[in-house]
């Protein structure tokens, strides 16, 4: 394979406009599968959550999970979609070992929800993303390719298939083409996926965990020369497993497409895989018009015709729309517009909500999530909610600071310990011996040594220049390796010198 020529994004955007389409797959959190009564729990022993229906034994028939229909309608309504009065499932026919029937039961030209939109905000600007459709389908099983180095089928010695996931209900949300200023494309894509995650998380119909695959995003992207109205050939990038990756995938594909087009080449219509480690994409399966899924209405399933009354009942169960909720939270918390924008941009809204619910002040919660946690997420390239620390733990640590047992500096070490799996904040403090020393005996001795070591400063303080106390406090802190109660140290210094 020849190396790809990559054009820096800024240069690419001088010549081309990106056109995007985003597909999001949401795994619903129903107790049972889409078409049978098997449990859906994540992480069970392979092939223990299967039955004649989801294994496609000869003669077995599907029956639609009513709860999944309800969730699909609620998602459709939250996306401002119309809900079909009558729709059907369709069979998407192709052979693959992890798909038991060798067709996927999906929806084709009759989706349950269609013609919706959502508004996302990037750098203070609002962008409307039009939703073409949200349809119901079932997940496939999972292939595990054993042997070989890549974990992909090529080079593997053999493959194992786990059908536990086969038949888990999915909702696929498909946008219409998204055309925004090129320099905003990546951020808008990220903001959209993040918005949908919050929206659907708020409905309680899915765990929306990108790291566990319960929310999966595909990024379709093409470039067209500036001023042109003809769409270019698109690539479909799969396996984009974090918000950050959505952004990176968009940028990488802009660079890659521009490289091909600049050299006069043509972009292949193909599936590409995103690699978290390198931030690049690689060729998957070539797609072409030859791909023919022979869709036809699923004759084994009765059509779905949700009554208008039911749809209205479900509409009434929708939580507060995100925009309204954000305004309310901003007012409650006393955040500035900029604070709020940063919070949403970082995907920290729900984390701060949960931290505040656990007893922390909004300002303190914001300080941790947008400061310390955002910095850590940047280093590891993960999303905030995948860092390995929960809002409850952050709140516990803040409470420990408030009570004076640790200070901000020690708190960072507690975060390290919690993330490293050393236990609860309390256990980490004990394990790492991080407690602040406020015992007057130990502190007094240290203060005495500091005064002795810096008689000039001591003299100035005696003379009424209290501003110099900081130097002595610093010396005490240094001696105590940061574990001193700074407030008490100051008091002791003043007691001794004034």
């Amino acid at each position, binding site marked *: 394979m020849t190396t790809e020529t990559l054009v820096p994004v800024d240069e690419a955007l001088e010549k081309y406009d990106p056109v995007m389409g985003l597909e999001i797959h949401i795994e619903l959190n129903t107790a049972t599968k889409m078409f049978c009564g098997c449990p859906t729990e994540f992480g069970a022993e392979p092939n223990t959550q299967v039955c004649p229906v989801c294994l496609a034994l000869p*003669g077995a028939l599907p029956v639609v999970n009513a709860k999944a229909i309800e969730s699909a309608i609620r998602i459709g309504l939250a996306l401002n979609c119309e809900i079909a009065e009558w729709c059907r499932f369709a069979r998407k026919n192709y052979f693959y070992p992890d798909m038991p029937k060798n067709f996927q039961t999906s929806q084709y030209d009759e989706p349950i929800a269609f013609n919706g939109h959502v508004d996302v905000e990037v750098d203070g600007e609002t962008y409307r993303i039009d939703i073409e459709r949200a349809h119901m389908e079932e997940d496939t099983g999972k292939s595990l390719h054993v042997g070989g180095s890549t974990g992909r089928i090529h080079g593997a010695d053999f493959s194992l298939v786990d059908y536990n996931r086969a038949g888990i209900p999915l909702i696929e949300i498909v946008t219409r083409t998204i055309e925004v200023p090129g320099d905003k494309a990546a951020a808008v894509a990220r903001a959209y996926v993040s918005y949908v995650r919050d929206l659907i998380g708020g409905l309680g119909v899915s765990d929306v965990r990108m790291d566990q695959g319960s929310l999966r995003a595909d990024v379709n992207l093409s470039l067209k020369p500036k001023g042109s109205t003809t769409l270019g050939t698109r690539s479909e990038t799969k396996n984009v497993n974090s918000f950050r990756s959505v952004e990176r995938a968009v940028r990488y594909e802009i660079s890659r497409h521009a490289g091909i087009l600049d050299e006069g080449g043509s972009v292949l219509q193909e599936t590409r895989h995103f690699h978290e480690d390198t931030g690049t994409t690689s060729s998957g399966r070539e797609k072409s018009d030859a791909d023919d899924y022979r869709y036809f209405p699923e004759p084994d399933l009765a059509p779905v015709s949700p009554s208008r009354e039911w749809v209205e009942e479900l509409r009434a169960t929708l939580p507060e729309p995100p925009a309204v909720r954000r305004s309310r939270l901003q007012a409650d918390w006393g955040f500035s517009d900029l604070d709020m924008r940063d919070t949403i941009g970082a995907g920290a809204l729900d984390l701060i909500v949960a931290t505040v619910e656990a007893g922390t002040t909004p300002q303190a919660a914001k300080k941790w999530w947008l400061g310390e946690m955002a910095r850590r997420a940047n280093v590891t390239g993960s999303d905030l909610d995948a860092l390995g620390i929960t809002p409850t733990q952050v709140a516990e640590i803040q409470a420990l600071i408030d009570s004076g047992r640790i200070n901000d500096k020690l708190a960072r070490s507690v975060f390290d310990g919690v993330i490293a799996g050393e236990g609860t904040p309390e256990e980490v403090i004990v394990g790492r011996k991080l407690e602040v020393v406020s015992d007057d005996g130990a502190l007094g001795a240290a203060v005495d040594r500091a005064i002795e070591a810096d008689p000039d400063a001591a003299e100035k303080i005696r003379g009424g220049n209290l501003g110099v106390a900081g130097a002595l406090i610093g010396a005490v802190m240094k001696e105590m390796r940061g574990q001193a109660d700074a407030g008490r140290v100051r008091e002791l210094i003043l007691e001794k010198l004034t």
Partner: protein
Amino acid sequence: MTDLTKLSAADLAGKLARKEVSSVEATQAQLDRIAAVDGDVHAFLHVDAEGALATAADIDARRAAGEGLHGLAGVPIAVKDIVATKGMPTTCGSKILDGWIPPYDATITQRIKAAGLPILGKTNMDEFAMGSSTEHSAYGPTRNPWDRDRIPGGSGGGSAAAVAAFEAALAIGTDTGGSIRQPGALTGTVGVKPTYGGISRYGLVALASSLDQAGPVTRTVLDAALLHELMGGHDPMDSTSIDAPAPLVVSAARRADVKGLKIGIVKELGGEGFQAGVSARFHEAVELLTSAGAEVVEVSLPSLEYALAAYYLVMPSEASSNLARFDAMRYGVRVPPAGADDPSAEQVMASSRDAGFGDEVKRRIIVGTYALSSGYYDAYYGSAQKVRTLLARDFASAFEQVDVLVSPTSPTTAWPLGAKLDDPLSMYLQDVATIPANLAGIPGISLPVGLAEEDGLPVGLQFLAPQQADDRLYNAGAALEKLLEDKWGGPMLAQAPDLEVVR
């Protein structure tokens, strides 16, 4: 002592209830009959003597203990090999399922087991129910008990022949385009295709999901009604199952009165292409109905001329998708490709399907795949679905004028083995009268109306009724059966030649 194998299911059930005979005796009699004649007829692919006798003994014991039992408890039954039976082979007449033992029961199997009917075994059929002669079974053809050099019809030739040869009084069939009714006509037995959705399809290996329907195969109309009632009714495991009270078919079969019944002869199903002896027996039967007080008129179903073409698009299209699951990955025969050292899953799928499926199955998968292809879908599958709508309208307007429709079940009597094997189109044409009911989802019954003059072979007549009016079929069928038996002085099968019995 009475030959227990010659009794109707209703009569045998009566004797069992009165404890004049035990289920073990009746079941053993059927097993003996199978052992004696089935080497020749080959109606069964699998016989489960042990299981059947165990069920029979259990029922006898429960009856002796005074337990309340289902009316058909203890009456042995044969099951078409397309119905999933837990612990008993289910091959669909195909090599690709050779040795497959289902780990679950079809809903109708569960109902039969719950009612205590000993299952004698699984009956032969055209592979995956594709065929009208049972010659497409991968395990060899079934022979017609009336003439063993002839086919018994298909796809359910095994169930029909088993009943005609007195190997069982009750059998289960499935009917996608006539697979219950046409073998019924060709073997002189009774076969019913119920309203689509009237009997659960859960556990029937699907040929064409929107057309398939299980139904009873028997020697009398009342027996068919008893079995229909046992199998029928709503099943939450089948999303296309009708959730409404089932038609009262047994009381209809007992009523057997056509006085004032309006009967429509389907104009398009007669005349050219219909064997003279078939037409003659059919018209005599209609006259008998008239003489018994029925009002007979001729009705036209103009869309009928497109029915066969539509059927041979819808059925293979759905089949091509339904049969995709036979990929040697999870069950069934796995045949690795010759010469490939390290074959891919895709290669194993392809070679297994190549080795496992017969020619007729491959033909229909190819036709169906083509008909569903992008660019052809609208012209083929799409047009065929429109024909179904037109046909359903034709039927609806016909049923505004009459209570039931009537036609010959099959244009001809049974043909010699091999006669049409190389001519699939001529084989497909045999389904012209039965297919419309499947396309429209309406019920149909076939019953014997005599032997054709020219060849002495059975002729069948078919009644059709509106959806969910299966009871009308049983009323009309039972009435005609009675009129004919009065005329003949007994059941038609009494005229069947004695089968050579192996001792």
